Structures are given as C-alpha cells and as structure tokens.
C-alpha cells in the first residue's frame, strides 16, 4: 500500500530578552550554576511572577511576521507536573488563549512551494536543568535557565515529508533570527523542535495514530529522524501491526527513534488560568507600533533584491536567507560594489570559507568595505580575477585590506606589453615542439602556453594582454 506522512511540528525558541520571563534575573547562557536565580524563579513561598513585556512583544512580532492573528486578550495558564527542575511544581505557559493564532509560512521543497499553517504561537517559561554527572549518588539542579522565556510555535499537520519538515524549521529559524527574537542555535538548544508524525494510505482523510518525536537538534536530524520514524511506522502497518501512541526520542548515535513513554504514562497537566497574572491585552496601537519596528521580512527583501539590484532569483534567495547576509550585501553595494559582483563573491568564496570553518557571517571579521576595495582593484586591472581569489582568502584570514595584501605580496598585475612579450618569447623558445603542433592545428595548446606564462609571472600577467600577444606571436 502507498502511505503518506502527516507531520506537525512544535518549535520552542528561547527569546533574546535580557531578563527572565517573570523576574529580573539575567538570561545569560553558561554562568555558574544557580547564580542567576532569585526567590521568584526558584519558586519560594509567597513570591509572584510579573510578565516580561519585551517577551510578549517578541511573540507578537513573530506572529506578525508569520501572518498570525494577534489575540486582543490572552492568558497565562499553569501546566502542573512534578519535576526537580521545575521549582513551582508547575510551568507558566499558555493554553486556551495564546497570544497568536492562525498563521502560515511558505516553504519550498523539491521545487514545490506550499503554505504550512500555524495553529498558534504562545509564550511560556523554560525549566531548569537536572545534572546527573559528577554528584555521586545524587542529582543536582541548576535553575539558571528556569524562567527564561520560551516561545512555542505549533504548526498544523500540513507537512508531508521529512524534507518539508526540515525546510519548515529552516524557514522559521531564519525568521526568528531575522526579526531578532531568537538566536536560533539548535546545538545549544535555544531552538528546539518536536514532531508529531503519523502515516495514512494515500487518499485517506482520517489521520493515523501519531507518535511524538523529541530531541532532534539540527535540520539534518529532523529530516533523518522523521525519515526513520515514517519507515518504522510503514513497516509496522505492512506487517499487520498497530502504531502505539507514544513519545519517542531520536537517538543520534544509533540513528533511530526509541520509545520514551506511552500515552498511558502521559501526564495530566491540569491546565488552568494562572491567577497570579493578569490577562495580556493587546490593542491596535500596540500592534501598529510593533509592526513599525519590524524589519523587512525575507520574502519582501528577496523581491526587492531582484527588482532593485537586478539579481537572479537564486542569488536573491540565498542573500536574503539570513538577515546578516542581506545586510552585509547591501552595505557592500552601498559602498559602491557592483551588485552582481558582490553577490558572486559572497555566494562563492565567502560562503565557501565560512562553511569550511562552520561560521556564521556575523562571526567573520571580513567587512563589506574590504570586498569593495578588492572589486575596485579588479575593475582597475590592478589584479587579475585569479589573483583576487588569493587576496580574498588572505583578507578573510588576516583582516588586512586588499591593497595592503597586494602590495606586500607583490601581486600587482603586469599589463605592460613589453614585459609580457619578453616572457612570451622565452616560453615559445623553450617549447618549439608545442609551437609546431599548435601551428599544425592543435589549438587547444593555447591554454598550455598561457599556463606556462602565468606560472612564470606567478599569475600576475594581465590575461587579456597575454592572450592577445600569444595569439599574435603564434600566428605570425
């Protein structure tokens, strides 16, 4: 039988606020355990939460960016369960009335663009961390993370393949980074993704029994885990078995999903409105104000890049995939760089070098002005395009300006005809057999000569002058 997958995703994004969701403690990552805590976030008796306005604004901004309706009235709710990293015995979250509902994002997978619905976006607080290593028979609890703001984005079950799922996560990650509400770091866990997945015979409307998959901390693993899970479910059905509704963990090392808890063991969270917090009321004025603060979003920017800079669709897509890349590009153009040349260098050499180091563009020290300086030297025939690649790599690594590198390494292009002619003559004299073969019609040897000359000039010969001279000499 032919099955199709039905996938819905839940994405948890840690918000980039300075302070926690319901108290004034810092949200900084990596401090000594329990140094960023206070009576409120460790759940002392009698203390009260006060909602962080910035966090609410970040969720509204995200909602606006993904076409959601912003609720004029929403509520915090308590999700009750016992766990040592949850100091109050409940997590403050949202349940019946989230801040954002009914949005969508467009994703493209295998050349097909589809709209994926978003059920809701809500705000909640994170839990702390239990530490089981290095404490003997005890476990330790670090509450630095307890109470940091988390935004949960829930999709409709509109996703049909692991690839689409990965694209969806990519899209949302780019979006939250774009509007500056989350750093999107999946390894550190500031962006986490869970999936609900089921399969059904193609053409059937009813959903199959779903499983929930957790612990997929990269795009790659989202794709792999779902791929594995879908195959697992198909195998069970093909063998006449039944899918059990359960939570499964993706085991990166083994490359499989493993059962964590079944539905019977699932918690009854006993959600109810948190009486310690007043409802969040959002009026049009607040929404308008946040809209005006919203940066240009990827889709709009992509369109502008094609119309304003005449870039091909593919260039515009890549350059607007991250806000930092788009801004780097526009700065270079503003400083006088030719848009297509800037784009070529960024998509080519720059991305290659970044990828080699696994770096983000904002982690690189290379500034747009440096690339523009390099482009000028190419335009003015001071260096060849080939040399420019060497210079670019040197700029990237040392942070020096192009002209300084060219000067220090003596890479200035030789365009003087007399000088080049001398070398051309030398090479031709050294290789009489090849000259004969060329003249006998073996024209591809032109490249051989050019290469020899470049080698002799350490690549500095102006290729245009060189080619003209070479052709002239060989045909004479």
């Amino acid at each position, binding site marked *: 039988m032919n099955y199709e997958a039905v996938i819905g995703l839940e994405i948890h994004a840690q918000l980039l606020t300075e302070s926690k969701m319901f108290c004034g403690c810092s949200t900084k990552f990596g401090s000594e355990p329990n140094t960023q805590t206070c*009576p409120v976030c460790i759940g*002392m008796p*009698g203390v009260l939460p*006060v909602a962080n306005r910035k966090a609410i604004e970040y969720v509204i901004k995200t909602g606006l960016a993904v076409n959601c309706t912003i609720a004029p009235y929403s509520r915090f709710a308590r999700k*009750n369960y016992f766990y*040592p990293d949850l100091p109050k015995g*409940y997590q403050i979250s949202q349940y019946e009335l989230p801040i954002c509902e009914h949005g969508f994002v467009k994703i493209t997978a295998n050349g097909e663009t589809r709209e994926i619905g978003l059920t809701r976006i809500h705000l909640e607080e994170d839990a702390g961390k239990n530490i089981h290593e290095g404490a003997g028979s005890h476990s330790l609890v670090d509450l630095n993370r307890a109470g940091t703001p988390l935004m949960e984005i829930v999709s409709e079950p509109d996703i049909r393949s692991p690839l689409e799922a990965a694209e969806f996560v990519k899209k949302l990650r780019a979006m939250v980074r774009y509007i500056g509400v989350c750093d999107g770091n999946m390894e550190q866990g500031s962006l986490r993704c869970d999936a609900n997945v089921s399969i059904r015979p193609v053409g059937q409307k009813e959903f199959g029994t779903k499983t929930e998959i957790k612990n997929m901390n990269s795009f790659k693993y989202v794709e792999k885990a779902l791929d594995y899970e879908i195959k697992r479910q198909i195998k069970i059905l093909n063998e006449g078995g039944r899918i059990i509704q359960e939570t499964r963990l993706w085991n990166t090392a083994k490359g499989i999903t493993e059962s964590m808890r079944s539905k019977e063991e699932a918690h009854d969270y*006993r959600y*109810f409105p948190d009486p310690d917090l*007043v409802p969040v009321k959002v009026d049009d004025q607040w929404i308008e104000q946040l809209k005006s603060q919203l940066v240009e979003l990827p889709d709009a920017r992509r369109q502008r890049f094609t119309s304003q800079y005449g870039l091909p669709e593919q260039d515009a897509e890549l350059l607007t995939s991250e806000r930092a890349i788009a801004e780097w590009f526009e700065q270079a153009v503003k400083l006088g760089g030719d848009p297509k040349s800037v784009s070529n260098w960024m998509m080519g050499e720059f991305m290659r070098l970044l990828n080699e180091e696994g770096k983000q563009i904002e982690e690189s020290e290379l500034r747009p002005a440096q690339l523009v300086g390099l482009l000028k030297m190419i335009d003015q025939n001071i260096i060849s395009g080939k040399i420019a690649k060497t210079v670019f790599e040197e700029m990237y690594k040392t942070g020096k300006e192009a002209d300084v590198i060219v000067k220090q390494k003596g890479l200035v292009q030789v365009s003087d005809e007399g000088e080049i002619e001398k070398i051309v003559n030398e090479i031709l004299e050294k290789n009489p057999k090849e000259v004969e073969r060329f003249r006998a019609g073996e024209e591809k040897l032109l490249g051989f000569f050019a290469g020899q000359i470049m080698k002799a000039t350490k690549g500095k010969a102006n290729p245009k002058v060189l080619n003209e001279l070479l052709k002239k000499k060989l045909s004479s």
Partner: protein
Amino acid sequence: MELYNFTIEDARAAIKKGEISPVELSEAVFKRIEAVDSRVHAFITLNKQAALKAAKEISPDTRHGLPGIPVAIKDNICTEGLKTTCASRMLEDFIPPYESTVTKKLKEQGCVLIGKTNLDEFAMGSSTENSAFGHTKNPWDLARVPGGSSGGSAAAVAADMCIAALGSDTGGSIRQPASFSGVVGLKPTYGRVSRYGLVAFASSLDQIGPITKNVKDAAILLNAISGHDLCDSTSANLAVPDFTSVLGRDIKGMKLGIPNEYFREGMDREVEQSVTQAIRHLESLGAIPIEISLPHTGYAVAAYYILATSEASSNLARYDGVKYGLRVEGKDLLDMYMNTREAGFGAEVKRRIILGTYALSSGYYDAYYRKAQQVRTLIKQDFEKAFEKVDVIVTPTAPTPAFKAGEKTDDPLQMYLADIFTISVNLAGVPGISLPCGFTSANLPVGLQMIGKHFDEETILKAAYAYEQSTDWHMKKPDFKEVESKK
C-alpha cells in the same frame, strides 16, 4: 488602662507626644504576651529581640506614620530573616530571604513586628485547629475556637497581646475570626493590597487585611498597607484614598442592603437577634435598610471549594522537598516526594490538595472548575446588581458565635459552613468588614459584616465607624480571670 490596651491611635498620640517611648510600649506588649499567651497560644514565633531593637531605633519626633506600633503578623506572610511557617511541618524552619510588601511597608512606617501568629495550616480552616503547632484558644472562652484561619491574629488583638495585627482572608479568614474574637477585621477589595510575600492558598481570592481593636485602627492600618505594587501584577494601579478621612461623617440616607438569603434557617438565634438589632440601630442613625436578593448565594460554598482547592493544589506543588523546607528521603525521587508531602502536610491540607487535583483533572475540568468559574461570575453580578440599589450590604459575619474546640474537626462540611456568609465576598472580590455588634448570653461576641463596592472601603468604614462610635461593644474586653474560672 494599661499600655497594651492601647489602640493604634492612642499609642501613636502617646509616642508622638513623648509620653511613652516605643520601647516601653513594646515591652508592655511582650509582658502581656508572657502573662497570657501560654493560655491563648496566639503566637508561633516571637520576635522579641529584633522588635525591641527596632523600637529603640525609632525616635519620638519621627516622621514615621506609625512610630513604634507593635504589630503581630499572621505566619503566612513572609518576613525577612524571621521564620514563616504557615503553621505547617513543611515550613517549620523556613526563614524567608525576602520581605513581603505589606511588612516592608509597615516597617517603613515605623511599626515593630512583634511576632508571627498562629493559623490553620496554609490558611486552610475556620478554627485555627489545623495548625501543626497547637490550637489557638478564644480569649472570651478558652474552650472555644477563635475562628480561623487568622485565629492567632484575632486572638492576639482580642487579648491585647499586640496593638494591631495583619491577617489574610481567602473565604472569611479575617472576618470570621474577628467575629468570633470580638475585634474588627477588614478584607480589602481584591487588588487593594499587594499579595507579594503572602504564601498563596488561593491566589485569586487571597487578600491581606487588618485585624484591629476598632474601626479607626483598621482604616489607619489599611492606609499603611494599600497600594499598587510592581511585584504583584494583580494589585490595582489606583490611587489610595486616606481611609480615615471619611470616619465621623454621618450616614443619613445611606442605603443598606439586607440580603434575604443571609437570614434563613440554620442561623443561631442570638446571632440573628444581635444583627437585627444592629440593623435597627443603623436605621436610627439615618440609614435606610432595603431588602435585596443575592440569588446565587446558595452556590457560593460549592463554587468556592472547587476554585480555592484547585488553586491550592497547584500553589502547594512547590513544597516537594527539593529546594527548601521539609525533606523526607526515599528510595527514589517519587518516593521522596510522597514521603515529604505525607509527613509535611496535615489532613485538611491534603484533603484540599486532593479535591483540587480532582477538580482540575482532564475530563472533570469543565464539570467542576469551569462551572465554578461561571458561578463565580454570577455571584459577582449579584453584587453588581445589588450595588445599583444600595451603598452597603449588611449581614451577619458568621451563622454562629465561636464554637467549641473539637466540635467540627471531624466534619469538614460543617466546618466549611462556618464561612457561608463570608465566602461570596471573596468570590466577588469586594471589600468586607466585620465588627462587634453584641454578645450572646454566654458572653461570646457576635460580628456584623458590612460589604462594599469594589474599591469602596471608604463607605463600609464610614458605616462601621458610625455604628461603632454609637455603641460600646468594641470597648468590652475578655476577662481572663473569668474565662479561667469557666474551665
């Protein structure tokens, strides 16, 4: 008159004039505690050393509003550096590293915190018998309960073991013990006083308020603790009037709503007589009684015990043995949780946690919690409608005078009915005051409840003051020689 008999007003005047020093006053109060509290047991913790030190630091020419006034604090209000137990084994040794907003305000005004008073564990109860640290006795009859849950505070005020006290009121826990103990107790409008530092029982109902020797003191203390607090998002961002400024104005033409649902069978005959007489007295002062109806009154206790226990089941989840308070080790985490909560909580607290957990459970939520919220809205609307016609609603505070210790401990439902007249006020969020309006033949105090509109404590204070000043119930004091001989 002894120094410990002073009201806030007396004490403040005497200290400002330099007739007595804050230290003398505090010492007199501690002496009184030493003489009486072994019989009443109003206090869990005394703060003598720190209190006398604080009293010493207050100079008589001070700008403080309440210079050197000795105040007792219910032991579910967090006091920095001073044990706050909630009358529970769970928090037997808990010393908060932070100050509640109300005690911070009192200290800033010059009050001296003399100690922490007994209560029903986590404020759950109506008799102060649910304390892990012993019962509090009613100063009017030591065989009887002082009411609850703020029974320690009410008894301390009644027995002159402080000048005034703070209590908390979730379903009547200030007003009912005030009624049983013959003192004045005011539950402010929900949101009038910050809850920051009040150990939560039911967050949407809890409110801190004064328990005092007379109405004016209640107004003075309410002035000191009211106001918006950035640490409590449910506290109202409203200007706070001077609650004493309306005292002494006449109440001619004031419309008093008398809800017929509050005068039905089951009420103690002597209580009914005292309250009826009080209404007649108010009429003689120019007020106009009007019969009204609060039609959903009959559902209040049921709705309350669903909502309050639901919130409590969640509020008390933090006492898990992991971070602070009692921990009883076990073979694994779940075992430790269960051992700790088994040993740390008393029977009534457990009963309410179980009730609330049940009411919030998946499949029952709509039938219980949501339905109770709807009833709450109806009760609120009952009051709104009534207040279109009247200025104040007058009722008995409790259906009976103080009952005997042990009388209702085996029957939780009977115990819950002790709050039948006070619970609606919390559900509606409106303010209510209880003040003495007579004594039974057994010399037990009877309380009169006056209920006002949202954020209109002024009107009930004005009416209560007019009543009090033209009667002398509030002047009566329990005679310890007499109550001793009764035993």
